[in-house]
C-alpha cells in the first residue's frame, strides 16, 4: 500500500457566508491519473486553488509527500513539486513559448540574479541546460516548432498545450490540469488523452479537472466527484458512471425514478 | 505644551471638524470612482484645486469683493455663498466628466490594465496643475473675505466661528443628500450594482458608461463643494493645494476603507482632527509627513481600512 502523494483531509473552504468546499477528503496516489469532475460550481477549481496555496484553508489539512502545505508560500509549494495549468489560459503573452517554459524551469536553478549579471559559469551552464530542457518539453508536448513564437500569437490548441509544457517545466511530481481539453475538437481530445497518458508514463502524477465525460473516463485511473463543495463519490471510472448519486448530481433526477 | 493643548482643545477640534468635512467631500470623489472602477482617480486633487479657483473667481470677479469691501450680510450673504458653492460644484463636476472622457474612457474600453489609467491620470493632474500655475504665475491667490467671521456661540472656552459652522452644516447636508441619492434613487442603485459586480450589472442591462460618467460627475460635485468650503475657511488658494490636500483626502478614504462611503465620512473626520492636532504639536511643516505616516500605518496594519476592501488580494 503506497503512501499517497497528495492527501486532502476534511478540507473546508469558506468565503464569507459561502461554503465552497465542505469536508472534502481524498488521496492522489503516485503515478495515477485522478479525474476530478462535478457540475459547474461544484468547487473543482477551488480544490486546485487550495492545493496551490492561493487560498488558506478554513479548516482541514492538505499534505504533499507526507508534509502539510499549510502556510507555505505559493512559489515554495510549486518548488516542492506541484504545478498547474489554468482554466482560462494564462500564458505570458509577450514572451515566446520557449521563454514561457524557461521561466518555469528557472524554478530549480541554483544561480540567480547576481550570478547571471557577472556571467558566472554556473549561470551559463544552467541557462544552457534549461534552454535545452525547455525545448525538450515543447517537443514532448508536440509544439516544438512554435518555440520562437510569441505566446499571444499562437493558435488556441497550441496555447493550451503550452500551458501544460510550462507547468512541466517546474519539474513537478504532481501536475494539476484544469480543463485542458476545453474548446478542443474530438481529434484534438484524442491526442490530449494520449499526451496525458504519456505524461503519466514519464513519471508524473496527474490530477485532472474536465467536463468531457468520455475523456475523463477513458484517461483516468480513478475519479472523484464533487457537488456543491462536497465529495459524493470516489471510485473507478466504471463505477462512477453507474453511481446514482453522480447521475442525480448532473441530471437532477435518478434514472429509475417513477 | 500639553496644558496649552488642553486650553485650546475645543477650538482646535472645531477647526479640525470643518477641515475634516472638507476632506470627507474630497475623499468621496476618490471613493466613489474607486467603487465603480477599482481605480484611484489621481486627477481628483486637481479637480478640487480648480473648484477653489472657481470660488475665488465668483467672489472676487463676479461679485467684485476686494480686501477692503464691506462684509455682506443677511440674504445677500446667503445668495453669494450659495452661488459660489453651486458654481464651484458645477465647474468641478463638469471637469470631472471631461477628465473621464478624455483620459480614462478609451483605456477602459481597451482593457489596458492598471498602469495605463494611472499614468494617464497623473498626466491629467500635471496638465491641470501646471496650467493653473502658469496662469497664476506660481503665486498663491488671495480670496477676499465676503462675510464677517464672527463667533456665533461658545462651547466650553472656545468660540464657535460662523464659517466653520457653515462648513460643517452644509457639508453634512451634502453628505446626507449623497447617501440618500445612493440608497434611494435608481441611478444610485445602479452605481452600487456596478461597484459590487460590474459584469453582472452589465448583463442586467445597466448602462455602464452612463453609470461611470454619473459617478465622476457626482464625485466632482462633492469635490467642488470642498473647494468652496476650503476657500471660505482659509481665504486663499494656489495651484499646488490640489496635491497637498489630495494626498490627505486620499489617506482619509483609505483609512475609512476605500470604496466605502461610510468610510469616507469616518476617515475624513479622523484625518481632519488628526492633522489639526498634529500641526499644533509639530508645526505645520511636518503635516505632510504626518499624513503619510498615517497612510503607511493604515496600509500595513489594517489595509481594508475601517470598513472597506483589501488591496493585497490576488486574483486567480
Amino acid at each position: 500500500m503506497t503512501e499517497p502523494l497528495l492527501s486532502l483531509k476534511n478540507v473546508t473552504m469558506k468565503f464569507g457566508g459561502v461554503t465552497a468546499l465542505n469536508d472534502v477528503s481524498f488521496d492522489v496516489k503516485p503515478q495515477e491519473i485522478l479525474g476530478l469532475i462535478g457540475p459547474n460550481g461544484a468547487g473543482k477549481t477551488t480544490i486546485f486553488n487550495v492545493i496551490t496555496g492561493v487560498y488558506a484553508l478554513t479548516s482541514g489539512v492538505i499534505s504533499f509527500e507526507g508534509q502539510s502545505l499549510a502556510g507555505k508560500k505559493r512559489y515554495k509549494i510549486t518548488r516542492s513539486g506541484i504545478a498547474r495549468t489554468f482554466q482560462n489560459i494564462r500564458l505570458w503573452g509577450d514572451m515566446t513559448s520557449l521563454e514561457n517554459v524557461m521561466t518555469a524551469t528557472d524554478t530549480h536553478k541554483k544561480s540567480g540574479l547576481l550570478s547571471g549579471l557577472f556571467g558566472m559559469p554556473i549561470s551559463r551552464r544552467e541557462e544552457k541546460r534549461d534552454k535545452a530542457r525547455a525545448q525538450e518539453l515543447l517537443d514532448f508536448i508536440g509544439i516544438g516548432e512554435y518555440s520562437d513564437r510569441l505566446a499571444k500569437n499562437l493558435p488556441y490548441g497550441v496555447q493550451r498545450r503550452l500551458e501544460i509544457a510550462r507547468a512541466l517545466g517546474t519539474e513537478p511530481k504532481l501536475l494539476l490540469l484544469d480543463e485542458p481539453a476545453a474548446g478542443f475538437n474530438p481529434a484534438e481530445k484524442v491526442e490530449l488523452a494520449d499526451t496525458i497518458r504519456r505524461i503519466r508514463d514519464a513519471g508524473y502524477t496527474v490530477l485532472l479537472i474536465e467536463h468531457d465525460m468520455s475523456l475523463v473516463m477513458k484517461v483516468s485511473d480513478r475519479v472523484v466527484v464533487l457537488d456543491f463543495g462536497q465529495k459524493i463519490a470516489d471510485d473507478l471510472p466504471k463505477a462512477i458512471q453507474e453511481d446514482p448519486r453522480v447521475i442525480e448530481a448532473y441530471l437532477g433526477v435518478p434514472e429509475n425514478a417513477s | 505644551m500639553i496644558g496649552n493643548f488642553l486650553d485650546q482643545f475645543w477650538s482646535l477640534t472645531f477647526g479640525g471638524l470643518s477641515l475634516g468635512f472638507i476632506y470627507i467631500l474630497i475623499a468621496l470623489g476618490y471613493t466613489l470612482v474607486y467603487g465603480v472602477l477599482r481605480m484611484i482617480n489621481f486627477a481628483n486633487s486637481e479637480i478640487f484645486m480648480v473648484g477653489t479657483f472657481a470660488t475665488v473667481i465668483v467672489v472676487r470677479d463676479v461679485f467684485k469683493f476686494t480686501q477692503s469691501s464691506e462684509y455682506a450680510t443677511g440674504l445677500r450673504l446667503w445668495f453669494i455663498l450659495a452661488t459660489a458653492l453651486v458654481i464651484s460644484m458645477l465647474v468641478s463636476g463638469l471637469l470631472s466628466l471631461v477628465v473621464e472622457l478624455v483620459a480614462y474612457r478609451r483605456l477602459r474600453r481597451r482593457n489596458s490594465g492598471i498602469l495605463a489609467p494611472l499614468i494617464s491620470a497623473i498626466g491629467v493632474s500635471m496638465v491641470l496643475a501646471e496650467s493653473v500655475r502658469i496662469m497664476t504665475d506660481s503665486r498663491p491667490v488671495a480670496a477676499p473675505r465676503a462675510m464677517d467671521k464672527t463667533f456665533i456661540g461658545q462651547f466650553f472656552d472656545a468660540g464657535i466661528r460662523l464659517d466653520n459652522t457653515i462648513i460643517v452644516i452644509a457639508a453634512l447636508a451634502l453628505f446626507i443628500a449623497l447617501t440618500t441619492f445612493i440608497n434611494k434613487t435608481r441611478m444610485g442603485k445602479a452605481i452600487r450594482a456596478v461597484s459590487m459586480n460590474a459584469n453582472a450589472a452589465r448583463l442586467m442591462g445597466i448602462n455602464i458608461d452612463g453609470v461611470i460618467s454619473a459617478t465622476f460627475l457626482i464625485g466632482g460635485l462633492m469635490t467642488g463643494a470642498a473647494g468652496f468650503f476650503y476657500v471660505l475657511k482659509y481665504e486663499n488658494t494656489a495651484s499646488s493645494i490640489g496635491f497637498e490636500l489630495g494626498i490627505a483626502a486620499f489617506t482619509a478614504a483609505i483609512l475609512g476603507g476605500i470604496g466605502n462611503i461610510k468610510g469616507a465620512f469616518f476617515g475624513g473626520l479622523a484625518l481632519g482632527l488628526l492633522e489639526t492636532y498634529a500641526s499644533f504639536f509639530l508645526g505645520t511643516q511636518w503635516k505632510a509627513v504626518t499624513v503619510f505616516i498615517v497612510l503607511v500605518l493604515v496600509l500595513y496594519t489594517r489595509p481594508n481600512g475601517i470598513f472597506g476592501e483589501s488591496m493585497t488580494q490576488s486574483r486567480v
Partner: protein
Amino acid sequence: MINLRDKGAEIWEKSGRPARAAIVLASIAAVASLPFMGGTILNTPVASYESVLVNPVAMYVLMAIGLNIVIGKSGLLDLGYVAFFAIGAYTMGLLGTKTDLNTWEILPIGIAMSMFAGLILGVPALKLRGDYLAIITLGFGEIVRIVALNLGALGRSEGIQNIPTPPAIFGFEYAFDSHRIYFWTLLVFILLAIWMVRRLSARRAGRAWESIRQDEDVAELLGVPTFKYKIWAFVLGASVGGAAGVLYASKTLYIAPDNFTLQISILILACVVFGGMGNIWGVILGAVVLAYLPDRIRFLSEARLLVFGLVLVIMMNLRPDGLLPRKKREKAIVTKEKS
C-alpha cells in the same frame, strides 16, 4: 520608424561577432562626439548646448534606464524615483563638504545608500498592488524632500553649497564648466547601466520580471519568487538613480530640496512612457527627446511640465507602447524565415 527598427534588427541578427562589435563601437563613438556638434542645428538657444547635453539629457537618460527596470520591465509603478536621486545627491553633498572623500570614493557610498533606501521602501511597499504601490512610493519621494527641507543637518531650504568637483582622471580636469568631461563620464555610466540591464534581461531575472509584469499571480504559482525579484528591481533601479544623484551633485556644486521634487519623478516617468516601456532603446530615445526638445524650442521651455503631462495622457491613450514598442523580435524572425 517601425521599418527602421526591424531593418536594424535584421542587420544585427545577420551579423557575426566582429561585425556586431564594430557596430557597437561606431555607435559609441558617434554618441561620444555629440559634445562637438554645438555649432550645428542641434544648438540650444536657451542654455549652453554642452551643459544641456549633461543636464538634463544625459541625466534623464541614465535615470530613465533605472526607472525602466522598475516600471518598464517589472510593471511596478514607482512615483517616487526622485528619492533615490536625492539620496545620492545629498550623500555626495554631505560627504563631499564634510569629509576628505572625493567623488569617486563617495560614489559607491551614495549608490549603497540609495540601494538601502530602495530596500527599506520596497520591503513594505511591494506587498501592495498597483495603485497603492504608486501612492506609497510617491509619499516616500515627498518625505525625502520634506525631510531635506526641514533638517538642519541637510541645510534646510538652502541645501548644501560648495560641493567639490571630482578629482582629475587620466589627466582630464573636472572644472565646473567642463561639460564635455562630465558628458563622457555620464556616458560611461549609461553604458554600464545598459550593459547591466541587457545582461539581466536575457537571463533568469529578465524572465522573472517579465512574468511578474504580465501576470504576477501566475508567476508565483509557477515557482517564481516574485517578492524577491520585485525587491531586486527596486534596488537596482535605486542604484542607478543614486549614481545619477552623486554625479549631479558633484557637477552643480550646489543642491537644495527644490531640485528633488515630485515633478522630477514624473518627468522621468514621462521619458519611460514616451519612449516605450520595457524597451531600453525606446526609453533612451524618449529621454533624449523629452530632455532635449524643451531646450531647443524656446516656448516649450516655459511649459515643460505641462507638455510632459500632455505627453503622458496622449501616449497612454493613443500609443501606449511608446515610440519604440517592446521587443518585436518575432517580426524579424518571420522575415528571416521568408527570405
